[in-house]
């Protein structure tokens, strides 16, 4: 009877496994479909949309939101949210501007080399993220509130440092040995803009982190069942703190890319970017409740948002319609998701009933 029991169990189990993996694929499929639909529509309506240069340009635009969204994905996988990324984008740009203008240290002005500037900016982003993490883990402030507060604090800091002004020509000066900053934005190694390479790089890193490293397992576990993760000895507090730090770092990188592309840094840069990042992650099939989400899905989500925006511009759709359509797309994409899940459920149940009927 053990035999029958064991043979009885795995059979549907296997199918279930298949269905589930199908489901996971489907999540990205959904995002992919949305993207495909967009591309087809825009491709038909505008002959300039599907040109290689335009695709590269749009991807370059996607990169910025994509980079932020990768950080946001980690936070959301853990079941949190990070509203402060937009302000971090502005802050990191401002810090870069300040540093490239030269530091006044006791009378003399020091011009740190570009790599130092970059490191420092990312560090600033991580610092803000760390504050978010500490507020959430140590002081049990709800992620929404903690990061909302930091949204204001970081933006205020950016404004104060820059005194509201924009830092012009960050090109640097050969004499001062701080040139090369603009390459981050305008460089084109192997014909692709640097920012795209950065996104690819970070995406690969994220995949490795999530799929191959223990930290990735811990993160999914924490998002999936925090109590169980805790009991298993997962350092949930550290995991939670780290994701905010990473998210801050990604936002800072995005800020650097923008400043470099414009060779100037404006303190108000990045306003409302957090919303685009969250939208990308969710359209990519992640659950705000945590534990579910993939890098691939997130990137596709970012492409959906980015291509939508650029496509509408190319079609010359009025700004007002652009706003409305964006909202509609976000909702539709997620509804699609929900509908799909429910559909799967019903299908499975029906199948089970049928099976049982067959038995007796």
């Amino acid at each position, binding site marked *: 009877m053990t035999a029958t029991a064991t043979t009885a169990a795995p059979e549907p189990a296997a199918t279930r496994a298949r269905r589930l993996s199908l489901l996971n694929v489907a999540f990205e499929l959904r995002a992919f479909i949305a993207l495909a639909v967009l591309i087809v529509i825009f491709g*038909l*309506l*505008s*002959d*300039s949309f599907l*040109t290689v*240069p*335009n695709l590269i*340009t749009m991807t*370059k*635009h996607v990169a*910025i939101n994509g980079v932020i969204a990768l950080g946001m994905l980690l936070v959301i996988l853990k079941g949190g949210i990070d509203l402060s990324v937009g302000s971090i984008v502005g802050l990191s740009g401002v810090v870069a501007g300040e540093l490239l203008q030269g530091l006044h240290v006791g009378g003399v002005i020091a011009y740190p080399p570009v790599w130092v500037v970059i490191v420092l900016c990312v560090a600033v982003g991580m610092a803000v993220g760390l504050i978010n993490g500490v507020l959430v883990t140590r002081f049990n402030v709800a992620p929404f509130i903690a990061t909302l507060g930091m949204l204001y604090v970081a933006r205020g800091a950016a*404004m104060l440092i820059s005194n*509201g*002004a*924009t*830092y*012009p*020509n960050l090109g640097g000066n050969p004499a001062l040995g701080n040139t090369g900053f*603009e390459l981050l*934005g*305008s460089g084109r190694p192997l014909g692709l803009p640097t920012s795209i390479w950065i996104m690819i790089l970070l995406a690969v890193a994220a995949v490795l982190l999530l799929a191959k490293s223990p930290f990735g397992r811990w993160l999914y576990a924490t998002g999936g069942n925090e109590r169980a993760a805790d009991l298993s000895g997962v350092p949930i507090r550290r995991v939670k703190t780290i994701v905010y730090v990473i998210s801050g770092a990604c936002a800072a990188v995005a800020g650097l890319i*923008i400043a470099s*592309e*414009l*060779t*100037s*840094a*404006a*303190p*108000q*840069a*990045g*306003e409302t970017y957090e919303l685009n990042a969250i939208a990308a992650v969710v359209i990519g099939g992640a659950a705000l409740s945590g534990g579910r989400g993939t890098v691939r899905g997130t990137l596709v989500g970012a492409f959906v948002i980015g291509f939508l*925006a*650029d496509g509408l*511009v*190319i*079609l*010359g759709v*009025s*700004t*007002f319609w652009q706003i409305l359509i964006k909202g509609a797309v976000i909702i539709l994409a997620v509804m699609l998701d929900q509908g799909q899940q429910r559909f799967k459920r019903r299908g499975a149940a029906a199948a089970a009933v049928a099976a049982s009927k067959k038995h007796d």
Partner: protein
Amino acid sequence: GSAEQPATSASASSGAAAAGGLIAIITPSHDNPFFKAEAEAAKAQAEKLGYQTSVASHDDDPNKQSELIDAAISRQAKAIILDNAGADASIGPVRKAAQGGIPVFLIDREINATGVAKAQIVSNNSQGAQLVAQSFVEAMKSKGNYVELVGKESDTNASVRSKGFADVISQYPDMKPVAKESANWDQQEAFTKMETIIQKSRDIQGVIAGNDTMALGAVAALKAAGLLKKVVVVGFDGSPDAIAAIKAGEMHATGLQPAALGATSAVDQADQFIKTGKTGKDEKQSIDCELVTADNADEFGVFARK
């Protein structure tokens, strides 16, 4: 149903492309009537000259502006008419367009670089500001307490205008600034801040605002506080609403930027350049603003003389 409708418009647009080519018109958000008027004037002129147009707004986000310019480049626009998103932040993108072989014609706002754009047709903010300030001082009989409402600090025009005001007013020792607040070009914010400032002291004889929207916010606040009769309010832009307020005696004056004029002449020069390779004008052209008061209010329409 919805499928074919855009499809037709697409064929139409490609047809137009075959003709004059594309002129991209990029301005700040159209929820400000000034930029809307500007964009529409440019659009009208360009289409009159047989060009296809794409109108977009960068909402004062330098990055979005850069993206819009990228889009124009990859669509091989013949020219870009740009009301930019920051004197420094816009240099890079404009240069990028120039390198992409697309002439850029700046309107309304200048950038802190020359030789990059083909033309910078800027309404002379500082001249206009001084004009407004002058009439403001006269209306206040050169003395009294006044409030200044500044635009978004991160916006060049905010500081240019503020400076223009100061250049004039500072010459009158009896003009006393009691408050200088930023209201981010926003009416509701100007209203709230004005109400608060009034609470600080009702002894106010004048309000000078960086644009008309804020001026109208202040008017509403003063009206509510029953001070409007005693207070001189001036603004900037020359928006229809402001002109209406001037006619109604609620505002004293505003500096009208001939948005339409600048935009149309920018398109004309673009057309000239596309055809002949030169604009025939030097890069920096400033269009003087005009002072609108009760005396001449009737002569003005939407950001232009009738």
